[in-house]
């Protein structure tokens, strides 16, 4: 299998805090790789390193065989990397359609504006937001904003999609819908790296799972392996609420 993304000993510090510590992993084309870990483990920071928001202090990152360490986010977007934000960032005063058009217009394909509206409408239909297209993005509710994040990323027809807790804050029905949506995105051939706290979902969706704790990669394996991993269970015991959820759902 082809490696789409590879990190080598990535380190990111904030002052004295080592938010990401020597993280190395590989992501294969076509797979869904889950990234879990307690709150503050460094998951979002790792995403920020991968897509160029932060430059890691140490280590290298390769995407599509190219060393992309320190590249700007826009340049990575042009290479086919897209992401959603844990804390949604709608372009509030633009319409939902315009938000998605931005994704289509400036991603890898860099479509001319005349074609982006059509792409946007297709993606919005796929995500069940078609009837909101002309509404201002700021007026959507949280669940809709999460889907808008996804719609913008998808409209760029990315090769790699980084999902940061797209299920958080959704009710159980919405979670099921979103899980189904993610599965269908993968079927379109898009590789996915996803951070998730909803264990049932991540265990269900992922081909493999990475576990971060205090910035370090403490485990890597299939969902079954991860569920039985001693270190993982210990790490979650540090976060009793999550440990409970972990145990319950399994």
């Amino acid at each position, binding site marked *: 299998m082809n490696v789409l993304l590879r990190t080598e000993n990535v380190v990111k510090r904030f002052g004295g805090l080592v938010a990401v510590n020597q993280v190395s992993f590989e992501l294969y084309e076509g797979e869904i790789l889950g990234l879990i870990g307690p709150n503050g483990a460094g998951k979002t920071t790792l995403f920020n390193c991968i897509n160029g928001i932060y430059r890691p202090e140490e280590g290298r990152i390769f995407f599509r065989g190219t060393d992309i360490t320190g590249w700007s986010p826009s340049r990575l977007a042009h290479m086919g990397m897209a992401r959603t934000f844990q804390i949604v960032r709608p372009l509030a005063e633009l319409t939902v359609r315009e938000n998605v058009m931005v994704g289509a217009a400036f991603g890898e394909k860099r479509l001319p504006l005349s074609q982006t509206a059509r792409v946007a409408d297709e993606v919005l239909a796929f995500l069940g937001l078609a009837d909101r297209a002309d509404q201002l993005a700021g007026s959507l509710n949280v669940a809709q904003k999460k889907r808008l994040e996804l719609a913008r990323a998808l409209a*760029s027809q990315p090769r790699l999609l980084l999902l940061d807790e797209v299920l958080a804050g959704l009710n159980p029905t919405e979670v099921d819908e979103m899980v189904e949506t993610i599965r269908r995105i993968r079927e379109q051939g898009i590789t996915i790296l996803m951070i998730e706290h909803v264990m049932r979902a991540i265990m269900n969706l992922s081909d493999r799972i990475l576990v971060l704790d205090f910035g370090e990669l403490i485990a890597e394996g299939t969902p079954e392996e991860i569920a039985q991993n001693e270190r993982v269970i210990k790490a979650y015991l540090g976060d009793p609420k999550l440990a409970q959820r972990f145990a319950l759902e399994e």
Partner: protein
Amino acid sequence: MKRSLWTLFLPVLVVLAVGLYPLLTQQDVHRETSFTLLRAVALAASLNIILGFTGYVSFGHVVFYGLGGYVAFYLVAEKGWPFWSAVLMGGLAAALLAFLIGAGILRLRGAYFALVTIGVNEAMKAFIYNFQPFGGPVGLTMNFAVYKAYGGPRAVLWMTYHWLFVVTLIVVAVSYWIRVSKFGLGLLSIREDEDAAEVMGVRTSWFKTWAFTLSAFFPGLVGAIFFFRNASIEPHDAFPLHVSIESIVMVMLGGQGTVIGPILGSIGYQWMRVFLLTNRLLKNIQLAVAGGLLLLIVLFIPAGLVGWLRRRFPATRRFLL
């Protein structure tokens, strides 16, 4: 929602109405009124490119006006360049200044950017003050022999009016183009959330720099036209901070980030200004009134008149842009 062609026609019609009126009446007083209006429209609409479309509040718009004025004046009065080429150079000089400082100062956000733009204006004023080719503190004066080549002072007043009219129409057309183009979509996304835009593939520094450069080109042209007809230029007239502030008020009043907003805002503000100037009591506090007005707009209708209409009556979005 399909956008109606009125989104283009309305702004153009308003400018045509203002611009053509003196041409029909051929009255000097009408020409002078329309000159003031068109200058305000051109300054506000060009400021809107960086302020309204890109979301960067510049208090330094007038620096481009003054620089364009000086460069053109110098080339015409001292170097004998033809008027049209001097005007073009005035615009290009202003654009070049924006391009050169843009890469640096557009990294700053919010109040920091605003403050630095004031600094740029003051620094330029101080520089010109000490720059002998531009006459230093005294400035430059036009030799009336230069006007002769253009048919005398009265002909110059009409010629510069025609020029300003055309430049204003171009500014409005460019505003419209930006608003409906991919370039404009990139700018709007920066205004809304610069980091998110960058992640979606918008090369934000490139977009911001070009928006700033374009936004500076037109005040450069306008300054060049104005000071040529003014027959003299000096640092105080060329870089008045209050013109920057008034331009912001005009943009905000009409609706930042819209095409027609800055046009209506300029006309509305100029109308109010005439009223203030003719009122003895208010004459001396017109700037205070502008500041107060800005405060009221920001507090109560931050989207301006057109923004408010578009939000309150969604049907108007079809033809108000």
